[in-house]
C-alpha cells in the first residue's frame, strides 16, 4: 500500500464513521437519549451473530438486517419495560442492553466453531487494516470494503436526515403535536434507532463497539454547545466527526497508538474546547458575561451614589475610598476607572462628581429605583422592605418596563420615603 492511499483510506473510513455517527448522534443528544446510543451499540450483538449463523458469511447485508432488527427489538423492549411495566427508564435501558449483549456473548461462545468473529475486533476495531480489506466485483478491485460500507451508511443517514428533516424535527420537539398532524413519533423513534443500530455495526469493524459510543454522543454534545440552530448543530456535529478522524490519524502517528482511540481522544478534546470557548454556553463566555454584569451593576451603583450625594449638597465630598465601597473592591475600581474614561464622572482635587451624561444616566437609574420602590410598596411591601429588591431591579429596567410601572402608579410623585421620583 503506498504512502498516500494507505493513510487516505484510513482517514476516509474514520471520517465517514465520524460523520455518520455525528449526524444521528446530534438527534440522540437533542432527544436526551444519549444512553440509548450506548445501549444499542451493545444490544445489536446477538443480531449480528444470528445473521452470521443464518447466512454463513461475513456479508454486510445480513449483518445490517440482523443489527437493525435487534436494535428495534431492544428499543421495543426498553419502551415496554418503561411504559407498560413501569420500570424506570434508565433501568429499562440498563436491563435490555446488558441482557441482549450477554445473549450475544453466549451465542458467540456456544457456536464458536461456526462464528468467525474476532471479539477483539468487535470491541476495539481494526481501522489500520482498512486499506487491505478489499471489495471485489468479479475480478475488479473496487477499493477498501469499510469505505464502501461506511460510505453507503453515511449517504443513507444523510438522506434520512435531509428527507425526513421535518418529521424528525416535530417528533423530537413535540411528540403529541406530531401525532396530531399525522406523524407517528413512535415510528420516527424506531426508524432512528434502527438507523443508529446499522450505523453502529458499520462502524464496529473499524472503530469497535466501545469507541463508536463516543462517536455517537461526543460530537453531538459538542455541537449543541455552539449553536441554537438545528441545521447548524447537525452540520457541526458531522464536521467534528470528520475533523476528529483527520487529526486523530496524525496524532496516532505521533503517539504510535491506536488510530481509532486517537480519533476519539480528539473528539474529547473538541468537546473540552467547546465547553470552554463556545460563545453562548461555554464557560469562558459565561464568565465574561458574569464579569460584565457585575461591572455594570458596580458602575450603576457608583453613579447613583454620586447623584444622591448631589441631591443633598452642592459640592461633592466623595473620594475614591467612598466610591470603591459601593461594590466588591476589585470590580468597583474598574467600574470607576471606566466611568472616568468615558467621561461620565470626573475627579477634581480628589473628589468625584458626575459629568453631564453621567447625570442623565444616573437620573434614569434613580427613577428606576424609586419607581420600583413605590411599585413594590403599592403591592403591599412595607417601606423598609423595598430598597433591596429595587436595588436589584433598577439595572434591568428598560423604557418599556419603566413606562409600565409608571402607568401602574398614576398619581405618585415620590417614593415611599418621600423622595421625589425624577423625570427622565
Amino acid at each position, binding site marked *: 500500500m503506498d504512502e498516500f492511499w494507505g493513510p487516505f483510506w484510513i482517514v476516509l473510513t474514520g471520517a465517514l464513521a465520524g460523520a455518520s455517527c455525528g449526524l444521528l448522534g446530534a438527534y440522540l443528544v437533542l432527544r436526551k437519549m444519549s444512553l440509548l446510543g450506548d445501549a444499542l451499540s451493545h444490544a445489536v450483538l446477538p443480531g449480528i451473530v444470528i445473521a452470521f449463523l443464518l447466512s454463513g458469511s461475513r456479508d454486510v447485508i445480513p449483518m445490517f438486517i440482523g443489527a437493525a432488527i435487534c436494535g428495534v427489538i431492544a428499543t421495543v423492549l426498553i419502551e415496554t419495560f418503561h411504559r407498560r411495566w413501569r420500570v424506570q427508564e434508565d433501568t429499562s435501558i440498563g436491563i435490555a442492553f446488558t441482557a441482549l449483549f450477554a445473549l450475544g456473548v453466549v451465542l458467540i461462545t456456544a457456536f464458536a466453531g461456526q462464528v468467525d468473529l474476532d471479539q477483539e475486533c468487535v470491541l476495539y476495531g481494526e481501522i489500520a487494516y482498512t486499506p487491505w480489506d478489499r471489495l471485489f466485483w468479479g475480478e475488479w478491485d473496487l477499493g477498501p470494503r469499510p469505505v464502501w460500507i461506511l460510505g453507503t451508511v453515511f449517504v443513507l443517514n444523510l438522506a434520512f436526515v435531509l428527507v425526513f428533516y*421535518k418529521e424528525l424535527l416535530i417528533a423530537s420537539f413535540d411528540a403529541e*403535536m406530531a401525532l396530531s398532524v399525522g406523524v407517528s413519533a413512535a415510528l420516527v423513534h424506531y426508524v432512528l434507532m434502527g438507523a443508529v443500530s446499522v450505523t453502529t455495526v458499520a462502524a464496529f469493524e473499524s472503530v469497535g463497539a466501545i469507541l463508536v459510543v463516543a462517536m455517537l454522543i461526543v460530537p453531538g454534545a459538542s455541537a449543541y454547545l455552539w449553536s441554537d440552530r438545528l441545521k447548524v448543530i447537525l452540520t457541526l456535529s458531522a464536521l467534528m466527526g470528520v475533523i476528529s478522524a483527520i487529526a486523530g490519524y496524525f496524532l496516532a502517528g505521533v503517539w504510535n497508538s491506536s488510530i481509532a482511540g486517537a480519533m476519539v481522544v480528539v473528539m474529547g478534546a473538541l468537546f473540552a474546547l467547546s465547553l470552554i470557548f463556545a460563545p453562548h454556553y461555554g464557560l469562558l463566555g459565561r464568565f465574561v458575561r458574569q464579569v460584565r454584569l457585575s461591572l455594570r451593576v458596580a458602575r450603576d451603583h457608583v453613579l447613583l451614589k454620586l447623584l444622591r450625594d448631589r441631591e443633598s449638597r452642592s459640592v461633592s465630598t466623595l473620594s475614591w475610598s467612598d466610591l470603591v465601597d459601593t461594590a466588591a473592591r476589585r470590580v468597583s475600581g474598574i467600574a470607576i476607572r471606566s466611568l472616568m474614561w468615558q467621561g461620565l464622572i470626573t475627579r477634581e482635587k480628589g473628589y468625584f462628581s458626575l459629568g453631564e451624561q453621567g447625570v442623565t444616566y444616573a437620573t434614569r437609574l434613580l427613577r428606576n429605583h424609586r419607581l420600583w420602590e413605590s411599585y413594590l410598596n403599592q403591592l403591599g411591601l412595607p417601606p423598609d422592605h423595598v430598597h433591596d429588591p429595587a436595588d436589584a431591579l433598577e439595572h434591568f429596567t428598560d423604557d418599556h418596563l419603566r413606562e409600565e410601572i409608571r402607568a401602574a402608579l398614576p398619581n405618585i410623585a415620590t417614593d415611599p420615603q418621600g423622595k421625589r421620583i425624577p423625570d427622565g
Partner: protein
Amino acid sequence: MLHAVDESVTPIHIHDMTVAYHKKPVLWDVDLAVPEGKLVGVVGPNGAGKSTMIKAIMDLVPKASGWVHIYGKPYSRMRQVIGYVPQRESVDWDFPINALDVVLMGRYGHIGWVRRPDKIDRELAEEALEKVGMTDFGHRQINQLSGGQQQRVFLARALAQDAQIYLMDEPFAGVDAATERAIIDILMDLRARKKTMLVVHHDLHTVNQYFDWLVLINMRIVAAGETKDVFTDDNLNKTYGGRLTVLSEAAQAVAHHQRGL
C-alpha cells in the same frame, strides 16, 4: 339528556368514552356533544381528566371504551380539521429552533410526509405570528421567549393549522395579563368565524366572561351546556366537592388491586 345528535353538524361527539392509565380509570363514561361555533370552557379540579379528555379526542391516549366522532367521522379521517395547543410545559423550550420553526409545524399536517414547507406555508406562519402580536419574534430562539410569548407561539402554531376545531390545554396558564387579553381576543375572533373551541381553563373568575358553553368535569361529566345554565353553585360544589368522590375511591381501589395487594 337523551336526545338525538345530528352528527354532520356536531364538531365533537363523544359517546360513552372511558379512559384509563394502566387500568386505573381517569375518565368515566363521558357523553358529550359539543355544538358548532362555541367557545367551550373545560373546567374542573386537578386530576379531573381535563387534559385526558382532550388527548383522548385526538387518539393521543387510548380509550378503554366508547368512541369519538368529529363531524360524524372518526378522528383518524378528520385530523386536518383539528388544531391543537398542548400545555406549554409539555415540550423542551431549549430545543434549538426559533419561533417561526415552531409555528411552521402547524402546517405539517397540510404539507404531508417528506415535502418541505413552501413559500405559502411560510407566509401563513408569519401571518399567524402577526395575529398573536409576535411578528418581531419569528427569528428569536424559543428559549429566549418569555412564558407568555411561548404560549402565543403555540397559539400561532394552532392558527397556522387553519382548523375548524381547536383543542387547547390551559392556554392561559402562567401568562401575563396582556397575553391573556391577546389570546382571548383571538379566541373571540375565531368564534366569530364559526370555529369551535374546547379550552381547558383554571380561573373560575373569568368563566362567565370568556365562555358561552361550559363543561364541568371531575372524572366524569358533572354538567355541560350553556354557561348561564351550567355555571351554578350547585354544579361547582358537585365538581369541586371537598371529599374524595366515590369515583376516585373506586379508581384507587382498582389501582390497589392492580398492584396485587
